[in-house]
C-alpha cells in the first residue's frame, strides 16, 4: 500500500507549482513529480502582433523578471528589423538590465532562499524562517540595508524603464530615451553603494553559511543536493560571463567545453521535451538526446543560472567578482561544482559583478550621449531575429519571425526557468529520496526537500520583505483508497 505526499502549492516560490511524492510499501520514496500547473499561451497569441510591440507584451510573461524578456525581445526585434543599437543605447540597456539582476537576486538571497534557510536554519522554528528571523539574528541594520539597496536597484529600473515592473525602455534599434548627467551621477552613486553591499552580502554568506560545519556538510554531501549535469551560459569571446550578449557555451559534467554556438544556431543544439503531467516543457541538449531525468555525460539535461554560469564560463570581466569566482572554485575544490546549494553563493557573486559593471558603464564617456537609437528603415528589414541572453534564473531565448507588414508570424520562447526545470525535478526527487525514509515525514524534512528547488530561484518567486509568517506546510498522507491516514502540520 503506497502513500502519496502532496505539497500544494509550493510556497515562497509562488503558487503555481505543486509536488507529488509517492512512497512505496516500505515508506521510501518511489517517485516524485514537480508539476507546473500554469500555461498562458504567449507562443500562440503573440502571432499577428506587431514585432515592435513585443518588448512590451512579453514582459507580462513574468512580473518578477520582466526586464529579461524585455531585453531579449528587443534584441530579437533588432534582428527582425535589421538594426543594431548605437553603443550608448546598448550600454544603457545593459545598465537597466544589471539593475534588474540586482533587484531580483537580492530579493531571493535575503528573503526567499538562503538567508531564512541558512541564517535562521533549515529546520528551525518555521515562524522565524523569514526575513524577520534573519533580522533578529543579524540585526535590524541589515534589514534596513537590504530594503534600501533593493530600492536603489528599483530606482534605476524606474529611471530608465519608466516602470520597474513592465519597463518601456528597449525598442528596436536602441532605447526610448537617453540619460542626463545628473541621472548618470545618481546611478553611479547607487551602483557604488551596491558594490559595497554585495561585498557585505558575500561576507554574510561566508560568515553564516560557509563557516558553519553543519551547513558545509549539507552543501558538500553528494547524497542530497548534488547532480552531475551539463552546464550552459552565455559568454564573450574570452569565455567570461556576459548577461547581455555572446555565445552559448556548454560544458559537460567534467567541466570540458563540448559546445559553443551563437544564439542564432540554438535550434541545432537545443530541443524541448513534453511530459503529460506538467504544462512546462523541458529544454535539453539535442546533441545528447532526451534520456529522462538523469545525471551524467550522456544525458541531455543541463543546468543554467548562477551555478551553471560559473561552471560554464571562465569567470567575470570585473575584478572583484573575478576574485570571488576564483575563491569559489578554490573553496569547493575545483571545477565544475555540482553541489546544488552553492547556487546561492554563485548568485551573490553575480550580484557583485552586476554592481561593478553598472559603475563601469557609468564611467564610459559616451553614456550620456543623446544618440541612443538607430531607427530601422524598410531596407534593413530582415524578417527574423533570434536573441539569446542570460536572465537571472537561466538562459533565455526569444525567436521571432515577422511578415512584410512587421507582424509576428511565428515565435518561439525558451524561458530561463525551463532550462533548469529538469534539474529542479531531479533535485526534488533526490532530496526526497535521501530524506524521507520508512514513511517518516516531518516539517524539517519537508523544508529540506523544498530547499532543493529554492536554489534555482525558479521564476515564480516573489520577494517578501517581511511578513511574519509561519511556514506551515500541511501534508496529507493518503492510502491507496484515498483515506486520510495521517496529517502532518508544521507552523
Amino acid at each position, binding site marked *: 500500500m503506497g502513500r502519496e505526499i502532496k505539497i500544494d502549492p509550493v510556497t515562497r516560490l*509562488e503558487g503555481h507549482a505543486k509536488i507529488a511524492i509517492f512512497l512505496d510499501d516500505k515508506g521510501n520514496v518511489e517517485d516524485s513529480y514537480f508539476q507546473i500547473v500554469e500555461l498562458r499561451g504567449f507562443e*500562440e497569441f503573440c502571432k499577428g502582433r506587431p514585432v515592435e510591440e513585443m518588448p512590451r507584451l512579453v514582459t507580462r510573461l513574468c512580473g518578477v523578471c520582466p526586464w529579461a524578456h524585455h531585453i531579449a525581445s528587443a534584441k530579437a526585434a533588432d534582428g527582425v528589423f535589421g538594426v543594431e543599437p548605437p553603443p550608448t543605447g546598448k550600454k544603457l540597456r545593459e545598465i537597466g538590465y544589471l539593475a534588474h539582476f540586482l533587484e531580483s537576486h537580492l530579493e531571493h538571497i535575503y528573503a526567499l532562499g538562503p538567508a531564512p534557510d541558512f541564517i535562521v536554519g533549515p529546520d528551525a522554528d518555521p515562524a522565524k524562517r523569514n526575513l524577520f528571523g534573519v533580522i533578529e539574528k543579524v540585526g535590524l541594520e541589515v534589514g534596513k540595508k537590504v530594503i534600501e539597496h533593493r530600492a536603489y536597484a528599483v530606482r534605476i529600473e524606474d529611471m530608465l524603464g519608466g516602470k520597474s515592473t513592465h519597463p518601456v525602455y528597449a525598442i528596436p534599434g536602441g532605447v526610448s530615451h537617453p540619460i542626463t548627467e545628473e541621472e548618470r551621477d545618481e546611478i553611479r552613486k547607487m551602483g557604488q553603494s551596491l558594490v559595497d553591499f554585495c561585498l557585505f552580502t558575500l561576507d554574510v554568506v561566508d560568515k553564516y553559511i560557509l563557516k558553519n560545519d553543519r551547513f558545509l556538510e549539507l552543501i558538500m554531501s553528494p547524497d542530497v543536493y548534488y547532480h552531475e549535469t551539463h552546464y550552459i551560459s552565455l559568454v564573450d569571446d574570452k569565455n567570461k560571463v556576459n548577461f547581455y550578449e555572446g555565445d552559448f557555451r556548454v560544458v559537460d559534467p567534467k567541466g570540458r567545453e563540448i559546445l559553443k554556438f551563437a544564439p542564432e544556431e540554438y535550434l541545432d543544439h537545443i530541443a*524541448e521535451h513534453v511530459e503529460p*503531467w506538467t504544462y512546462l516543457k523541458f529544454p535539453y541538449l539535442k546533441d545528447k538526446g532526451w534520456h529522462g531525468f538523469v545525471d551524467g555525460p550522456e544525458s541531455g539535461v543541463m543546468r543554467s543560472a548562477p551555478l551553471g554560469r560559473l561552471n560554464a564560463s571562465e569567470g567575470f570581466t570585473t575584478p572583484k567578482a573575478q576574485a570571488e569566482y576564483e575563491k569559489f572554485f578554490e573553496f569547493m575544490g575545483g571545477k565544475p561544482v555540482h553541489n546544488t546549494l552553492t547556487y546561492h553563493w554563485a548568485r551573490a557573486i553575480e550580484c557583485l559583478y552586476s554592481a561593478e559593471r553598472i559603475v563601469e558603464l557609468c564611467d564610459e564617456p559616451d553614456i550620456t550621449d543623446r544618440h541612443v537609437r538607430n531607427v530601422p528603415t524598410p531596407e534593413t528589414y530582415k524578417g527574423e531575429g533570434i536573441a539569446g541572453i542570460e536572465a537571472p534564473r537561466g538562459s533565455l531565448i526569444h525567436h521571432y519571425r515577422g511578415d512584410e507588414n512587421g507582424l509576428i508570424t511565428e515565435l518561439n520562447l525558451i524561458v530561463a526557468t525551463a532550462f533548469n526545470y529538469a534539474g529542479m525535478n531531479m533535485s526534488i526527487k533526490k532530496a526526497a529520496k535521501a530524506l524521507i525514509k520508512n514513511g517518516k515525514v516531518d516539517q524539517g524534512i519537508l523544508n529540506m526537500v523544498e530547499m532543493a528547488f529554492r536554489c534555482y530561484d525558479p521564476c515564480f518567486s516573489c520577494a517578501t520583505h517581511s511578513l511574519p509568517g509561519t511556514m506551515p506546510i500541511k501534508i496529507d498522507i493518503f492510502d491507496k483508497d484515498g483515506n486520510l491516514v495521517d496529517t502532518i502540520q508544521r507552523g
Partner: protein
Amino acid sequence: MARKISLALKRGASCVGCDIAVVNLSQKLFDLLEIADIVFSPTLLDVKYDDLRKMPDKSITIGLYHGAVRNSDNEEFAKIMRDKCQVLIAYGACAHMGGIPGLANVSNREKIFQTVYKETFSTDNPKCVFPQTEWVDDRGHKLTLPEFYDEVYTLDDVVDVDYYVPACPPTHEMNMEILNLIKDWVEGKRDLPPKGTVIAREKTLCDECPRNPGKGKKITVEKLKYISEVEPDPEKCFLEQGILCLGPATRAGCGAPCIEANMPCRGCMGPTSFVMDQGGSMLSAIASILGISEDEIELSEEDIEKLVSQLKDPLGCFYRFSLPKSLLRKVVQDREV
C-alpha cells in the same frame, strides 16, 4: 486603536507583477502591517490551500485577487476567495479586464496546445504528447493538472466583485491611495466607495498627460507612424506626431510613467466607466482624426480603406489589456461565402 484587519492575496493567471507591486510598497509595507495581518498569500507566505479552505466564510476582511481566470484552479480559488473574504478586490489589469493573458482569446485551447506543444521551432514531440488534466504513470500513480479553459475570463465573470484596481501593475501611488483608504475605513474615518467602483479617476490619460497640447488644439493625423520607423519627439503629444497612443481611451491615475519614458500609452488602466468597450472607444477616436482633408469629396471608399489600413493589428492594439471584457470577448470563425 482599531482592530487589525486580515488580508489575503491570491493569484489567477498572473505574471506576479501585482505581488511585486505590493512588495514595492517597501518601507510602507510596515504601515500596511500595522493595520493588517496577511493571512494567506502563497507567493509571500507558506499558508497552504487547505488552510484557506478551512477558514470560516467571511473571516478574512479583504481579499486581493490578481490574474485572469484561465483554468479550473483559477476559478476554484476565485470562488473560495469570494466565500472567505468580506470584501473582494479585482487587483490589476488581468483580474479587472483580462490583461495580456486575455489576448489568448484570439485563439482557443486546441490551437494553443498545438502551437506550444507541437509546432514551436524547438519542440520535439513526435508522439504528440500533450499535458493531461489527469494522467497515470506506469506505476499507477495519478497526477492531475488544472483544466485549461477554452477562453480567458475576468474575475467578475466567475464571482461577484466588490472593487477593481486597474493598471498593469498598479502603481505605487495607487497602492498608497488604497492603503490610506483602507486605513481610514478601519479607523472609521471614511466609508468604502459604492460597490463595483473602479478605484481610479474618471478622466482619461490625456487629462494628466504632460504632453497634452492644451484646449483648443486640434489634432489630426496625416500619416500613422510606428516606433519602428521614427524617433519619437520627447515633448510632443504622440498622436500629434502620428504615433498611436491609447491615452484618449484610457483612465488617468497612473502618473503617465510610459509617456515620461517617451513611449505611448497602451491602455493598461482600462477605459473610464462611461465607455462600454475600450477598443471601440479608441477605434472611434483614432478614425475620427485620421487624414481629414480639404478634398474629402474626392476621396473614394477605396482611398478611405487605404487610409485606415495603416493601422496594424487594431485588435491587438486597442484591446491589449481588455479583450475578455470587450463586447465581443473572443475571436470566432465565420463563413467565407
